[in-house]
Protein backbone atom coordinates (compact mmCIF):
# COMPACT_ATOMS: atom_id res chain seq x y z
CA UNK A 1 0.00 0.00 0.00
CA UNK A 2 1.27 3.43 -0.92
CA UNK A 3 0.84 5.78 2.00
CA UNK A 4 1.48 9.29 3.23
CA UNK A 5 1.94 10.68 6.75
CA UNK A 6 0.31 13.92 7.85
CA UNK A 7 1.41 15.24 11.25
CA UNK A 8 2.65 18.64 12.34
CA UNK A 9 5.08 17.02 14.80
CA UNK A 10 8.37 15.90 13.21
CA UNK A 11 8.92 13.37 16.02
CA UNK A 12 5.60 11.70 15.26
CA UNK A 13 6.35 11.58 11.52
CA UNK A 14 9.71 9.95 12.23
CA UNK A 15 8.13 7.31 14.49
CA UNK A 16 5.36 6.45 12.04
CA UNK A 17 7.90 6.36 9.21
CA UNK A 18 10.03 3.90 11.21
CA UNK A 19 7.00 1.72 11.97
CA UNK A 20 6.10 1.71 8.26
CA UNK A 21 9.65 0.74 7.29
CA UNK A 22 9.20 -2.50 9.24
CA UNK A 23 6.19 -3.52 7.13
CA UNK A 24 7.09 -4.84 3.65
CA UNK A 25 3.68 -4.06 2.18
CA UNK A 26 3.91 -0.35 3.05
CA UNK A 27 5.66 2.34 1.04
CA UNK A 28 5.73 5.86 2.47
CA UNK A 29 5.62 8.19 -0.53
CA UNK A 30 5.53 11.52 1.29
CA UNK A 31 5.29 13.17 4.69
CA UNK A 32 3.49 16.45 5.34
CA UNK A 33 3.59 18.80 8.36
CA UNK A 34 0.13 20.14 7.54
CA UNK A 35 -3.07 19.15 5.77
CA UNK A 36 -2.97 21.87 3.12
CA UNK A 37 0.22 20.53 1.55
CA UNK A 38 -1.26 17.04 1.58
CA UNK A 39 -4.42 18.19 -0.23
CA UNK A 40 -2.30 19.60 -3.06
CA UNK A 41 -0.40 16.32 -3.26
CA UNK A 42 -3.58 14.21 -3.28
CA UNK A 43 -4.98 16.25 -6.16
CA UNK A 44 -2.21 14.83 -8.32
CA UNK A 45 -1.41 11.45 -6.77
CA UNK A 46 -3.38 8.37 -5.82
CA UNK A 47 -2.53 6.71 -2.56
CA UNK A 48 -4.00 3.81 -0.59
CA UNK A 49 -3.56 4.87 3.01
CA UNK A 50 -3.09 8.02 5.07
CA UNK A 51 -1.71 8.23 8.60
CA UNK A 52 -3.45 11.33 9.82
CA UNK A 53 -3.00 13.38 13.00
CA UNK A 54 -6.17 15.00 14.34
CA UNK A 55 -4.71 17.93 16.30
CA UNK A 56 -3.05 20.23 13.81
CA UNK A 57 -3.07 24.03 13.80
CA UNK A 58 -5.56 25.76 11.48
CA UNK A 59 -6.84 22.59 9.83
CA UNK A 60 -7.68 19.51 11.89
CA UNK A 61 -7.57 15.94 10.65
CA UNK A 62 -11.38 15.87 10.49
CA UNK A 63 -11.43 19.12 8.48
CA UNK A 64 -8.99 17.47 6.10
CA UNK A 65 -11.18 14.38 5.63
CA UNK A 66 -14.17 16.61 4.85
CA UNK A 67 -12.27 18.06 1.87
CA UNK A 68 -11.74 14.66 0.23
CA UNK A 69 -14.35 13.49 -2.27
CA UNK A 70 -13.12 9.89 -2.38
CA UNK A 71 -10.93 9.49 0.66
CA UNK A 72 -8.49 6.58 0.77
CA UNK A 73 -8.23 4.43 3.88
CA UNK A 74 -7.21 6.51 6.87
CA UNK A 75 -5.57 5.55 10.15
CA UNK A 76 -5.92 8.33 12.70
CA UNK A 77 -2.95 8.99 14.95
CA UNK A 78 -3.53 11.15 18.00
CA UNK A 79 -2.64 11.73 21.63
CA UNK A 80 -6.32 12.26 22.36
CA UNK A 81 -8.54 9.19 22.86
CA UNK A 82 -11.65 11.38 23.07
CA UNK A 83 -12.25 11.55 19.33
CA UNK A 84 -12.86 7.82 18.88
CA UNK A 85 -16.63 8.20 18.65
CA UNK A 86 -16.37 10.95 16.05
CA UNK A 87 -13.97 8.76 14.08
CA UNK A 88 -16.65 6.07 13.78
CA UNK A 89 -18.72 8.47 11.69
CA UNK A 90 -16.26 8.17 8.80
CA UNK A 91 -16.28 4.99 6.72
CA UNK A 92 -12.79 5.75 5.41
CA UNK A 93 -11.25 5.56 8.90
CA UNK A 94 -10.04 2.00 9.42
CA UNK A 95 -8.32 2.45 12.77
CA UNK A 96 -7.51 4.92 15.54
CA UNK A 97 -4.05 4.86 17.08
CA UNK A 98 -3.34 6.66 20.35
CA UNK A 99 0.21 7.98 20.72
CA UNK A 100 2.69 6.77 21.74
CA UNK A 101 2.08 4.08 19.12
CA UNK A 102 3.55 0.70 19.92
CA UNK A 103 4.84 -1.61 17.16
CA UNK A 104 2.30 -4.28 18.15
CA UNK A 105 -0.68 -1.93 17.93
CA UNK A 106 0.64 -0.51 14.68
CA UNK A 107 0.79 -3.99 13.11
CA UNK A 108 -2.85 -4.60 14.08
CA UNK A 109 -3.86 -1.36 12.42
CA UNK A 110 -2.08 -2.33 9.21
CA UNK A 111 -3.77 -5.73 9.26
CA UNK A 112 -7.12 -3.96 9.56
CA UNK A 113 -6.25 -1.65 6.68
CA UNK A 114 -5.16 -4.57 4.52
CA UNK A 115 -8.33 -6.48 5.34
CA UNK A 116 -10.48 -3.57 4.17
CA UNK A 117 -10.60 -3.66 0.36
CA UNK A 118 -10.97 -0.22 -1.14
CA UNK A 119 -13.86 -1.24 -3.37
CA UNK A 120 -15.93 -2.64 -0.55
CA UNK A 121 -15.13 0.49 1.39
CA UNK A 122 -16.66 2.55 -1.40
CA UNK A 123 -19.63 0.18 -1.55
CA UNK A 124 -20.20 0.40 2.17
CA UNK A 125 -20.06 4.18 1.95
CA UNK A 126 -22.71 4.31 -0.76
CA UNK A 127 -24.89 1.81 1.12
CA UNK A 128 -24.73 3.82 4.29
CA UNK A 129 -25.58 6.99 2.38
CA UNK A 130 -28.52 5.21 0.77
CA UNK A 131 -29.85 3.97 4.06
CA UNK A 132 -29.73 7.44 5.45
CA UNK A 133 -31.31 9.04 2.43
CA UNK A 134 -34.05 6.42 2.00
CA UNK A 135 -34.91 6.28 5.67
CA UNK A 136 -37.32 9.12 4.91
CA UNK A 137 -38.07 11.23 7.89
CA UNK A 138 -35.53 9.75 10.27
CA UNK A 139 -32.03 10.76 11.20
CA UNK A 140 -29.82 8.58 13.36
CA UNK A 141 -27.32 10.26 15.67
CA UNK A 142 -24.52 8.65 17.63
CA UNK A 143 -24.78 9.50 21.33
CA UNK A 144 -22.73 7.58 23.89
CA UNK A 145 -22.23 4.75 21.38
CA UNK A 146 -25.98 4.43 20.77
CA UNK A 147 -27.64 5.30 17.49
CA UNK A 148 -30.70 7.32 18.38
CA UNK A 149 -33.50 7.96 15.88
CA UNK A 150 -34.74 11.51 15.48
CA UNK A 151 -37.82 12.41 13.49
CA UNK A 152 -36.49 15.04 11.05
CA UNK A 153 -39.63 17.24 10.76
CA UNK A 154 -39.73 17.51 14.56
CA UNK A 155 -36.33 19.23 14.56
CA UNK A 156 -36.80 22.96 14.82
CA UNK A 157 -33.26 24.12 15.53
CA UNK A 158 -29.67 22.93 15.24
CA UNK A 159 -27.01 24.96 17.02
CA UNK A 160 -23.24 24.52 16.67
CA UNK A 161 -21.25 24.72 19.92
CA UNK A 162 -17.55 23.97 19.50
CA UNK A 163 -17.07 20.35 18.54
CA UNK A 164 -20.75 19.60 19.24
CA UNK A 165 -24.17 20.39 17.84
CA UNK A 166 -27.37 20.79 19.84
CA UNK A 167 -30.36 19.34 18.03
CA UNK A 168 -33.64 20.68 19.39
CA UNK A 169 -36.88 18.87 18.63
CA UNK A 170 -40.51 19.22 19.70
CA UNK A 171 -40.00 16.64 22.45
CA UNK A 172 -36.36 16.49 23.33
CA UNK A 173 -32.93 18.05 22.85
CA UNK A 174 -29.81 16.13 21.83
CA UNK A 175 -26.12 17.00 22.05
CA UNK A 176 -24.12 15.26 19.35
CA UNK A 177 -20.38 15.27 18.62
CA UNK A 178 -20.62 16.47 15.02
CA UNK A 179 -20.55 19.54 12.82
CA UNK A 180 -23.21 21.82 11.40
CA UNK A 181 -22.03 20.98 7.87
CA UNK A 182 -22.51 17.26 8.42
CA UNK A 183 -26.05 17.53 9.69
CA UNK A 184 -26.89 20.08 7.00
CA UNK A 185 -26.05 17.45 4.38
CA UNK A 186 -28.59 15.09 5.98
CA UNK A 187 -31.47 17.54 6.33
CA UNK A 188 -33.90 18.29 3.47
CA UNK A 189 -33.16 21.65 1.82
CA UNK A 190 -36.83 22.49 1.40
CA UNK A 191 -37.42 22.39 5.15
CA UNK A 192 -34.17 23.57 6.69
CA UNK A 193 -32.06 26.66 6.19
CA UNK A 194 -28.75 27.79 7.59
CA UNK A 195 -29.42 31.32 8.82
CA UNK A 196 -26.14 31.89 10.64
CA UNK A 197 -22.80 30.14 10.80
CA UNK A 198 -23.91 28.53 14.07
CA UNK A 199 -27.59 27.88 13.37
CA UNK A 200 -29.82 25.83 11.08
CA UNK A 201 -33.55 26.35 11.48
CA UNK A 202 -36.66 24.52 10.36
CA UNK A 203 -38.39 27.18 8.26
CA UNK A 204 -41.84 25.71 8.99
CA UNK A 205 -41.36 26.36 12.70
CA UNK A 206 -40.71 30.10 12.47
CA UNK A 207 -43.05 32.14 14.66
CA UNK A 208 -41.88 35.58 13.61
CA UNK A 209 -39.01 37.49 12.09
CA UNK A 210 -37.71 40.76 13.41
CA UNK A 211 -34.81 42.67 11.87
CA UNK A 212 -31.91 40.25 11.97
CA UNK A 213 -33.40 37.50 14.09
CA UNK A 214 -36.08 34.83 13.96
CA UNK A 215 -38.19 33.49 16.78
CA UNK A 216 -38.52 29.70 16.81
CA UNK A 217 -40.33 28.24 19.81
CA UNK A 218 -38.75 30.27 22.60
CA UNK A 219 -35.39 30.68 20.89
CA UNK A 220 -34.38 33.94 19.28
CA UNK A 221 -31.91 33.06 16.54
CA UNK A 222 -29.63 35.58 14.79
CA UNK A 223 -29.83 35.77 11.01
CA UNK A 224 -26.61 36.80 9.33
CA UNK A 225 -26.78 39.44 6.62
CA UNK A 226 -25.59 37.03 3.91
CA UNK A 227 -28.28 34.45 4.77
CA UNK A 228 -31.18 36.87 5.08
CA UNK A 229 -32.05 37.06 1.33
CA UNK A 230 -32.42 33.27 1.12
CA UNK A 231 -34.63 33.28 4.21
CA UNK A 232 -36.84 35.98 2.74
CA UNK A 233 -37.17 33.98 -0.51
CA UNK A 234 -38.53 31.05 1.45
CA UNK A 235 -41.35 33.02 3.03
CA UNK A 236 -44.84 33.24 1.61
CA UNK A 237 -45.01 37.02 1.92
CA UNK A 238 -48.26 38.88 1.55
Amino acid at each position, binding site marked *: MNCIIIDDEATARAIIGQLCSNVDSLAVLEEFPNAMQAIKYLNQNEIDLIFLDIHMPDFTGFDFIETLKNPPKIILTT*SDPNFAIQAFEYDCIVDYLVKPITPERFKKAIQKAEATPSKSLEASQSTSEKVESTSGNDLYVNIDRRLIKIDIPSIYLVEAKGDYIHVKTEDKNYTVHSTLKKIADKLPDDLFLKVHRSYIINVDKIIDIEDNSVLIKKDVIPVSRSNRPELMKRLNLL
Partner: protein
Amino acid sequence: MEKPNMSYIQSMSGGDNAFEQKLITIIKAEFPEEKKVYYNNLEAKNYKLTAENVHKLKHKISILGLEKSYETAVAFENNLLEGSTTLQDEFESILTIMTNYLQQL
Protein backbone atom coordinates in the same frame (compact mmCIF):
# COMPACT_ATOMS: atom_id res chain seq x y z
CA MET B 1 9.80 12.06 40.79
CA GLU B 2 10.04 9.56 37.94
CA LYS B 3 12.97 9.74 35.54
CA PRO B 4 12.94 9.77 31.75
CA ASN B 5 14.12 6.64 30.01
CA MET B 6 14.79 5.19 26.57
CA SER B 7 12.46 2.18 26.83
CA TYR B 8 9.93 3.34 24.26
CA ILE B 9 12.54 4.60 21.81
CA GLN B 10 14.41 1.30 22.07
CA SER B 11 11.20 -0.69 21.57
CA MET B 12 10.60 1.35 18.43
CA SER B 13 14.09 1.02 17.05
CA GLY B 14 14.38 -2.74 17.44
CA GLY B 15 18.13 -2.26 17.93
CA ASP B 16 18.50 0.17 15.05
CA ASN B 17 20.97 2.63 16.59
CA ALA B 18 20.85 4.94 13.61
CA PHE B 19 17.09 5.39 14.07
CA GLU B 20 17.51 6.01 17.82
CA GLN B 21 20.04 8.75 17.12
CA LYS B 22 17.84 10.22 14.39
CA LEU B 23 14.83 10.34 16.69
CA ILE B 24 16.82 11.87 19.56
CA THR B 25 18.15 14.53 17.21
CA ILE B 26 14.62 15.36 16.06
CA ILE B 27 13.31 15.51 19.63
CA LYS B 28 16.25 17.69 20.71
CA ALA B 29 15.48 20.12 17.89
CA GLU B 30 11.71 20.13 18.26
CA PHE B 31 11.31 20.10 22.07
CA PRO B 32 12.87 23.55 22.78
CA GLU B 33 10.68 25.09 20.06
CA GLU B 34 7.53 23.56 21.52
CA LYS B 35 8.54 24.73 25.01
CA LYS B 36 9.14 28.25 23.75
CA VAL B 37 5.70 28.44 22.13
CA TYR B 38 4.16 27.03 25.31
CA TYR B 39 5.78 29.68 27.54
CA ASN B 40 4.86 32.48 25.11
CA ASN B 41 1.21 31.46 24.97
CA LEU B 42 1.06 31.01 28.73
CA GLU B 43 2.56 34.44 29.31
CA ALA B 44 -0.01 35.90 26.91
CA LYS B 45 -2.68 34.06 28.95
CA ASN B 46 -3.95 32.41 25.79
CA TYR B 47 -4.92 29.24 27.60
CA LYS B 48 -6.59 27.55 24.64
CA LEU B 49 -3.40 27.73 22.61
CA THR B 50 -1.36 26.80 25.68
CA ALA B 51 -3.53 23.70 26.05
CA GLU B 52 -2.72 22.79 22.43
CA ASN B 53 0.98 23.20 23.20
CA VAL B 54 0.66 20.94 26.24
CA HIS B 55 -1.19 18.47 24.03
CA LYS B 56 1.79 18.33 21.65
CA LEU B 57 4.32 18.13 24.49
CA LYS B 58 2.40 15.19 25.96
CA HIS B 59 3.63 12.99 23.13
CA LYS B 60 7.26 13.65 23.99
CA ILE B 61 6.54 13.08 27.67
CA SER B 62 5.22 9.63 26.79
CA ILE B 63 8.09 8.92 24.38
CA LEU B 64 10.50 9.48 27.27
CA GLY B 65 8.60 6.97 29.36
CA LEU B 66 7.19 9.46 31.88
CA GLU B 67 3.89 7.75 32.56
CA LYS B 68 2.84 9.61 35.73
CA SER B 69 3.98 12.91 34.25
CA TYR B 70 1.81 12.17 31.23
CA GLU B 71 -1.23 11.99 33.52
CA THR B 72 -0.24 15.34 35.07
CA ALA B 73 0.02 16.82 31.57
CA VAL B 74 -3.43 15.49 30.64
CA ALA B 75 -4.91 17.08 33.78
CA PHE B 76 -3.06 20.36 33.15
CA GLU B 77 -4.29 20.45 29.55
CA ASN B 78 -7.87 20.03 30.78
CA ASN B 79 -7.36 22.74 33.41
CA LEU B 80 -6.11 25.15 30.74
CA LEU B 81 -9.13 24.44 28.58
CA GLU B 82 -11.23 25.53 31.54
CA GLY B 83 -9.13 28.67 31.99
CA SER B 84 -7.18 27.45 35.01
CA THR B 85 -3.40 27.20 35.40
CA THR B 86 -3.56 24.68 38.24
CA LEU B 87 -0.70 22.15 37.86
CA GLN B 88 1.45 24.68 35.97
CA ASP B 89 4.37 24.26 38.40
CA GLU B 90 4.17 20.47 38.25
CA PHE B 91 4.05 20.52 34.47
CA GLU B 92 6.99 22.89 34.18
CA SER B 93 9.01 20.67 36.53
CA ILE B 94 8.43 17.88 34.03
CA LEU B 95 9.71 20.09 31.22
CA THR B 96 12.84 20.85 33.25
CA ILE B 97 13.49 17.17 33.90
CA MET B 98 13.08 16.42 30.19
CA THR B 99 15.36 19.30 29.24
CA ASN B 100 18.10 18.05 31.58
CA TYR B 101 17.73 14.50 30.34
CA LEU B 102 17.89 15.46 26.66
CA GLN B 103 21.03 17.51 27.30
CA GLN B 104 22.77 14.38 28.54
CA LEU B 105 21.95 12.34 25.43
